[in-house]
Each structure stands twice: as C-alpha cells, then as structure tokens.
C-alpha cells in the first residue's frame, strides 16, 4: 500500500481539501481519477503537480476528436517498414523496431511508476472510453503484430479530465474516482493568486478580486473568467505598470478576462467596464 496523504498540493498549486483527498484516494486505490470542472480551474495543472509531488514522470495524452484508443497503446509504422524493405535499411524482420508506443503504452511499460494524464477524454469518439476499459482495469495490453504482452510493473496514477462526464459510458465511470473541481471561493482564490504573485499588495489584490467576482456575477456570460485568466490579468496589470488604482474607473485589459465579443458587450452595457 502506498503511503496515504502524499499529495498535499505544492508550492505552486493550491488544492482544496476535497481535491487532495480525492487524489489520495485514487492513488491508494490505484484507480483512475476523473476530474471535472469549469475550464481554467487547473484540471491539467493538477496532473503536473501530482507527478511533482510523487516525484515521478508525467506522461501526457491529449485527446482529439480523431484519437483512437489503440493509438494510445502503440502505432505500427508500416510505411517505414515497407520503405526499409525496399531500400534495405535495418532489419525488417524485426517488427518491434516499427512499433512505437503511445502515451498509454509508455505508461504501462515503464519500469517505474508514472503519472498518466488523459486530457479532455470527452473530445474523442463515443466508444473511446469503452475501448480503454480493459487496459485501464488490467493495466496490460498486447501488441498484436509481435505477440508481445506488456503488463505494468507499477500501476500508473491515471488522471483523466473531462468537460462532460454525462457522455462517458457507465461502465467506464464505475471504475473511476470522481472529483468535481468547484470554483474557488474568495479565500482560496487569494491564496492561489498569492502563489503566483507573492509581491501583490493586499489592497490591490482585494480590488482585483472585487472586479473579478463582479464580472463572474454578470448573468449569461458565455465564458466567465476563470482562475488562469485572473492570474494572467494581474500579470498584465503588473507588467504594463497601469496604476491599479485606476481599476475603480474602468477595467484595463478586459480582453485578458473576457474572451468573446458578446461577453464584452454585455459587461460594457452593465457599466462595469
């Protein structure tokens, strides 16, 4: 059994108690951790920080709409092999030379424990999660071309992020530990900002948070500003040297906080900017 409570957040990543607990449960039970939450709440960053805390390698697998489950295990490069057979380079009889492991394949064949991040799993084809069930459960797979079986020496810590768990199959969900990253409250948020901007004056931080949470309360924003945008915005303010006292008058660099024209318009209409 691994030592429980190993993940406590890091110097650069502040995690809520619930999140810490969920990570530790997933690590101890050796089950995938499924994370959901508004964009910009640090789902992807978490994986980096878990890897950092556990002092292991992080393997990332970013999912696209065309990603196939098998690509994550390995890719058999037939063209290279045909090419070699034609021009006589290398040993074409050795198929394994043309097998390239994908992120999941690498994670499973690693001699050490690793953290595997499967990012935005809901983007893939609908059957994608089902195709991964066996591999994630048994933590082994077979390379058909060579007949080689690969079993993980150490079950990797799997962190999966999704923006829409409703579209994930039940069988898949049942195997996961689920955590919903709630939007940080003011107190947690000021801790998070402090980590990134330690030299920010208390009063200025207060003003920034006022503006930030004020914006989030504007109804029907298509994309309310999130943590990462707040941090970028404060950075922009600092870099430009715009007097933060001006915040009272209007919001400088609104574009770092709001990302659609429509949102801008509705904020301007309400006289906030």
């Amino acid at each position: 059994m691994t030592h429980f409570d190993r993940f406590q957040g890091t110097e650069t990543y502040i995690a809520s108690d619930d999140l810490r607990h969920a990570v530790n449960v997933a690590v101890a039970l050796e089950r995938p951790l499924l994370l959901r939450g508004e964009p910009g709440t640090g789902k992807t960053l978490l994986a980096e920080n878990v890897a950092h805390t556990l002092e292991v390698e992080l393997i990332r697998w970013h999912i696209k709409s065309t990603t196939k489950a098998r690509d994550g295990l390995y890719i058999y490069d037939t063209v290279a092999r045909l090419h070699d057979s034609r021009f006589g380079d290398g040993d074409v009889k050795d198929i394994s030379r043309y097998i390239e492991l994908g992120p999941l394949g690498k994670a499973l064949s690693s001699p050490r424990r690793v953290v595997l991040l499967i990012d935005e799993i809901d983007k893939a084809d609908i059957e994608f999660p089902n195709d991964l069930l066996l591999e994630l459960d048994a933590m082994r797979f077979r390379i058909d071309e060579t007949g080689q079986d690969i079993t993980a020496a150490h079950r990797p810590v799997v962190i999966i992020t999704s923006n829409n768990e409703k579209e994930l199959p039940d069988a898949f969900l049942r195997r996961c530990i689920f955590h919903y990253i709630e939007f940080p409250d003011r107190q947690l948020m000021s801790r998070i900002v402090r980590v990134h901007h330690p030299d920010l004056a208390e009063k200025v931080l207060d003003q920034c948070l006022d503006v930030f949470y004020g914006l989030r309360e504007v109804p029907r924003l298509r994309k309310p500003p999130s943590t990462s945008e707040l941090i970028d915005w404060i950075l922009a303010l600092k870099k430009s040297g715009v007097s933060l006292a001006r915040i009272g008058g209007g919001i400088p660099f609104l574009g770092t906080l709001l990302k659609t024209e429509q949102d801008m318009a509705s904020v301007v209409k309400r006289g906030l900017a």
Partner: protein
Amino acid sequence: MLIDFLFELRRHKLDVSTHEWMALMEAMALGLHESSLDGFYRLARSICVKDVTDFDAFDLAFSSYFKGIEVDALALAEELWTWLKDPKKFAGLTPEQRRALEALDLEALRELFKKRLEEQKKRHDGGNRWIGTGGRSPFGHGGFHPTGLRIGGPGGGRSAMQVAGQRRYRAYRKDMILDVRQIDVALRGLRQLGREGAEDELDLDETVDETCRNAGELELIFRPPRRNRVKLILLMDVGGSMDPHAELASRLFTAASRAGRFASFRSYYFHNCVYESVYEDAHFRRPVSVSDLLSGTDRDHKLVLVGDALMHPSELLHAGGSIYYHHQNRTPGIEWLRRIANHFRRLAWLNPEPRQYWPHTTIEIIASLIPMWPLTLDGLGEAVRYLIRGGRAPLVEPVVPIDPGY
C-alpha cells in the same frame, strides 16, 4: 450495518453498483476514510457519485442515514399520493387526525418537495409530457389544498402535480430517459460508409500487391478513409407547445451536430407547422423558402423532422391558418408537408408526444403523410433503421376527418 447506506443511496436514485461499493469497502479497509465522518463523506462521494448533479441527492441520502433524521421519503410520498388521489376523503378527518397531520415535520416535508422539484426538472428534461400540460393532469393542485397542509412555500400548488408526476414517471422511465450519449449511440446507426474524398489512408493489401507487381519496387497505394456519406437535414419545431420538449430536442441537436458525424448536416426551424418558409435560426430571423430548400437538396438527403405535430386542425388544413396573425399562408400547411414528403426518398418525423396521445389529433394526419416515431430510444432507433434501410413505415390508422369544431 453500512450496507444499509448503499440502499439508502439507491433509494435516492443514485445508481451505485456493487463494483463501486466494493471499491468503497476496499478504501475503508485501507483506512482512507481517516476514521472520521467527514473523511467517509468525501470518500464515499468520490467513489459512488460520478455526476455533479447527483451530489445533492447524495447529501440527502447521507444526512438521512447518518443524522438519524426520519425522512422516510418513500413513505411520505406514498401518503401524499393517497391524499392526492382522494382529497374528499381526507376532508372527513377528525380534528385530532388533522392536527396530527399538520404537526408533520414541515422541514422534512419541505426537503422532500425540494427534492421532488429537482426531480421534476429532470423529468422535464427527459421529455415527460406531464410538465406544462397541467390541464390534462388528473391531479391538479386543487387536490392538494383541501388537505389543509400549509405547504405554500416551495413550489406552491404545483407541488401536487410534481408529486403526481413523480409516480407517473416511474411507469415511463424505461423508454423516456434519453441523454446525449444514448442519442449518440442511436444515431451511430445513421451511416452509410463509403470511401470518398482525400486519399490519406494507406491501403496495405493493395500496396503489397502493387509492390509485388512492381518487382519489389515499393509502390504505396493510398485510399480515402471510410466516411459517413449520410447527409442529414434536421427540421425542428420550436416554441409554443414544444417548450416542454425543448431540452430533449436540443439534446438530439447536440448529438446530431457533432462534428464529422455526417457528410453534411443542416438544421432549420419552424414554428407549429411548416408553411412557405423555414428558418435558419430559432428566432425566425433568417427565412429560407421551402421551395428553395427543396430545389437545393437532392432526394437522397435524409430529412428528420422533430415536433409535436400538435396544432389546431385549421392551422394544418386551411389556407390562412397560420398561427401568426399577420401571416396569410395561401397554401395550407398540409400541402407544404406533402411537398416535403414527396421530395425526399426517406424522411422521418420524431414526436416527443407519447404515442397514446396521437389518435384523433393533427398528429395522426401528419403521421399518415410522414413516417412518424415517438422521440424515445426505441423510436429513434426504428427511425434510424428506416432512414437507412427503408422498409415499412409505421402503420397509421386511416385518417378520419376531424370535426373542425373540436
């Protein structure tokens, strides 16, 4: 025993499986609950609940199990159900009985109603027709007030119907739940694969053959990947009587419009019935005339109409019958529908109204023209099969002329 907690969770409609329960047990054996109730709460929730919208139900189950609060939700609902069925009988209670009932824990009751209210929302989303059509419900809120229970607060009189709706829902549950994923799966059948477009997939067999023929000189053969050739047009009724079904229709839209699913996907909107024009947007600002639409699309497009097909017969059958006062349609709606039906080789109408409400309405007339299925998992599956393979459209009783006075 803790196992009761599992059943408490399941009583709150949380679909916790043995798989998850065993994981929880394993976690507790490892001491992951930190021997505290807080720890157990977090542990149990992260293992058993996989959807934020279920968190509240989990909280309810948790508090009712662990704080010993006696909210026997089911029994209470049962009681309410009985009262609702027969309010008169209830009026005949003795003052003692009445007092006893009034002394019922109001907080608990409120909690229950809050929960019902939520569930109501879900059912609504699921397309259960009971919401918003109060007039047809055998249980109006009038059935509720005679009980003398002062539950004006949460939801007011509507609660009675909601509770009633709750029971109703159980009977329909199986064929009523349609989430995006299920629609997705059903729509997967809607494809005709063919190799078209850019050649960017290596054809290994052909490559080997060609290379042999070429005396070992490497000859790479590429082919276009298999793609879906189905071209789909979605025509949706919005507003008015479709409001209760809006969420369901939008799920269908979400699933159908997913990128890359069809060779081409277009959607249009109409209100109530199709006349000269349909619209590119749901606010009816960008009209497209039906004649243009038909001449611009070939017959092999698959057309799917979504709507309740429920209207006043004159809106369908008479010239000038449009629901909009200023809109004078020279050609009756039925004629436009006929033109559409004649143009496409295969088309289907999906109707969120349950099938038992179809007879003797405009639905029946339209269904005799355009093959119609209920917008349920089964209905969707059959419609997809029909669109791809053809076969017989569902049988509709011969149309009986409708008395216009109805």
